């Protein structure tokens, strides 16, 4: 633990903060108390410790304030107890009260306000930041219209199991609020629009109620399964003096909750099945929440010499490890354990979309009789309306609980369950998998070599030219919006949790750009180099986040996968046309009408430059790609964002 901060009291009665190197007031001392900064006050004359008497002065001054403390200032005190570093937000009148307090009373630190140009960007920045750092951010939104803008990002955070603290301004007093615009922007219950995809919401009616609810919402959001939470902040509450209930206000202390674990008896039963299986397979999606989760999965997999299929909504398992195998290994499995799968049914079943009205065929991907085990914290958090719970899958052993928290007991149970007679067979199984892994890598590289010199530039070339320029950095691939055939996960060596941050969760397009900026913000403070593969359609949902990155000096290398279309839709309309035996009408473009982003081609590099980015493009010749990315990397290393606009193959 570091030494306490020394505050010196000089003979002229002024206080001097030796860390901040400035004179401070009793209000500043109070701030140190609120921020839980350990300090001592020393009398400069005789070096006596006078901390106690100074604290008494702080209390006395507090009690004799001429005006009652403002509720919003108290709210800022509450917020500051939770170590929330940033607050990306688009400004709005409905939260002007707390906005003013945060930047003036709160001195715009912990949290620091970051100016956003769209609420969808604000929430997605919080989303990306959490996955890079493991720390939640908060955002403020305009009650009705701002929250309406934010909803897609909230849904993404919900589906991706990421905590985001959202506060929305709302003026509920219909008799006193301003008519016209502020009344258009008010509602009885602003939270209703996100209630189906937030873990909890509240509308506090007093300062103390706010304190309890804010700490509660933070705790709920950060207890696995994580998720976004919502609070409506009444305009009156933000501007009123604190109401006197005859009791002093207090801020409940936050203690992190222990994550829920799988039932121990079920863990033992699962371990027995795994230990005695001939071909066990581990399938993981959001199983690892931290690097420790990755390390535990390696332990479990090695213990069983079982292949691991990483579905990739997080970096769960190193792709350099020989037990990392593609999804098709489940076809031979006799036991499958799925951990935090977002779609268990879709893992073990196939759906062939070959009808012309959206009907298709279901097929099983596994052998009859394969035993299925599940550990999933999301089983504890199912809501009704939105269908993110996916198609129902029967499993033999189901453990509602957090995978990472359950892994230590599962590992111990497997160790106990593996009999000596099984050890040779298990080791032999590993040898076979090692060979398959090596063969798979050769085949992957051969696939990457095809169309290597093509124009438009192949996605394999795009990813490998990028990797060549960043491989010596402490890199973090913050997002791959669009679809680049998974080349990064197939060929970039990924071993650390932060090297791959997964995807949007809800597949709402528009996540990539803002989530990348949010993750890059977190990585900036942790000394990492952030790189994103940025698709064209995704960027255009809310490109103003480019300005936010430049304004707040967030270094990020964005390499564009510019395939000039909403490509998923390009293919859907083509397929519909073919199934109906009709020629797809492509108008003057390359793809069915309504799906292209061309004529005119968007000059993304010019767009980025206009918002303060270094940018280059359009790159059409693969020979120009490496040098352009190299230049961009140099810029990013000076602390600025840089974008390279690359015209690519579709996928």
């Amino acid at each position, binding site marked *: 633990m570091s030494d306490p901060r020394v505050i010196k009291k000089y003979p002229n009665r002024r206080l001097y903060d030796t860390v901040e190197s400035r004179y401070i007031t009793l209000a500043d001392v109070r701030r140190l108390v609120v921020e839980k900064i350990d300090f001592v006050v020393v009398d400069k004359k005789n070096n006596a410790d006078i901390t106690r008497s100074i604290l008494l002065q702080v209390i006395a001054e507090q009690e004799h304030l001429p005006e009652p403390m403002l509720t919003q200032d108290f709210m800022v005190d509450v917020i500051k107890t939770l170590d929330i570093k940033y607050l990306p937000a688009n400004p709005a009148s409905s939260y002007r009260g707390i906005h003013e307090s945060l930047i003036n009373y709160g001195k715009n630190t912990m949290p620091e306000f970051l100016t956003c140009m769209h609420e969808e960007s604000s929430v997605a920045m919080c989303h990306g930041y959490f996955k890079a750092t493991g720390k939640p951010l908060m955002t403020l939104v305009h009650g009705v219209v701002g929250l309406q803008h934010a909803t897609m990002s909230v849904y993404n955070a919900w589906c991706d199991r990421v905590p985001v603290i959202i506060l929305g301004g709302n003026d509920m007093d219909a008799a006193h609020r301003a008519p016209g615009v502020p009344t258009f922007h008010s509602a009885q219950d602003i939270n209703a629009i996100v209630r189906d995809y937030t873990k909890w919401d509240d509308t506090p009616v007093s300062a103390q109620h706010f304190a309890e609810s804010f700490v509660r919402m933070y705790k709920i959001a950060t207890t696995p399964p994580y998720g976004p939470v919502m609070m409506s902040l009444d305009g009156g509450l933000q501007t009123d003096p604190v109401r006197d209930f005859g009791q002093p206000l207090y801020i409940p202390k936050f203690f992190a909750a222990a994550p829920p674990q799988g039932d121990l008896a079920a863990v033992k039963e699962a371990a027995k099945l795994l230990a005695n299986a001939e071909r066990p397979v581990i399938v993981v999606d959001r199983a690892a929440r931290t690097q420790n989760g990755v390390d535990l999965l390696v332990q479990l997999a090695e213990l069983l010499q079982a292949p691991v299929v990483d579905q990739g909504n997080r970096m769960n398992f190193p792709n350099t490890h020989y037990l990392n195998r593609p999804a098709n290994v489940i076809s031979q499995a006799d036991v499958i354990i799925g951990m935090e799968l977002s779609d268990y049914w879709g893992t073990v079943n196939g759906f062939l979309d070959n009808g012309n009205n959206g009907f298709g065929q279901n097929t099983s991907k596994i052998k009859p009789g394969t035993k299925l085990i599940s550990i999933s914290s999301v089983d504890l958090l199912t809501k009704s309306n939105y269908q993110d719970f996916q198609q129902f899958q029967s499993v033999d052993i189901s453990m509602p609980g957090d995978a990472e928290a359950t892994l230590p007991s599962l590992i111990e149970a497997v160790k106990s369950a593996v009999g000596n007679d099984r050890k040779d067979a298990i080791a032999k199984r590993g040898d076979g998998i090692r060979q398959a892994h090596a063969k798979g890598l050769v085949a992957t590289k051969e696939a990457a*070599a*095809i169309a290597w010199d093509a124009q438009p530039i192949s996605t394999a070339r795009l990813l490998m030219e990028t990797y*060549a320029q960043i491989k010596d950095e402490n890199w973090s691939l913050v997002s791959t919006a669009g679809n680049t*055939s998974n080349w990064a996960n197939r060929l970039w060596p990924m071993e650390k949790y932060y090297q791959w941050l997964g995807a949007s969760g809800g597949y709402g397009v528009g996540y990539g750009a803002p989530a990348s900026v949010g993750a890059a913000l977190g990585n900036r403070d942790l000394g990492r180099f952030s790189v994103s593969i940025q698709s064209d359609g995704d960027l255009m949902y809310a490109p103003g986040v480019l300005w936010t990155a430049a304004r707040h000096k967030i270094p990020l290398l964005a390499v564009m996968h510019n395939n000039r279309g909403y490509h998923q839709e390009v293919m859907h309309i*083509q397929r519909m046309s*073919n199934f109906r035996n009709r020629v797809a009408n492509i108008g003057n473009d390359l793809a069915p009408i309504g799906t292209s982003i061309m004529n005119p081609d968007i000059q993304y590099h010019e767009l980025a430059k206009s918002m303060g980015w270094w940018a280059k493009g359009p790159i059409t010749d693969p020979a120009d790609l490496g040098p352009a990315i190299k230049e961009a990397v140099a810029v990013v290393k000076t602390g600025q964002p840089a974008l390279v606009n690359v015209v690519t193959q*579709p996928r």
Partner: protein
Amino acid sequence: MRFSSSRSSRSMKLRLAALTVAAAASFAAANIAVAADADKGKIAFTKNGCWQCHGFEGQGSEATSNGRVIARTQLPLDAFKAFVRTTNGAMPPFRPAVLSDDDLDNIYAYLQSRPRPKAASDIPLLNNTRTQ
């Protein structure tokens, strides 16, 4: 390369021409014939949306064609055409009302005209990555 036993003289001509070009570009007449067909094939490949899932070079993609490479396909022309006409899987069928036989022949020629890929071992960027 395997050949099916039943094939039209036109497809034979195309295939032989493609092979000739691949093997030795000195046959000027064959070269011109194939270049014309392959060029038309490129236009048809683009206009009819084949590139959407298979890439402009027929290189395939993990997400859309399950990695299937159709550039320089080993499938004989007849089998290739039969598949395109009748597929009812993730790939939709392209029936004659949508894509003519001539276009399909030309597309085949275009795919056969794609350059042989470099060996992965000859591409430094593919050897400067994960090794395990």
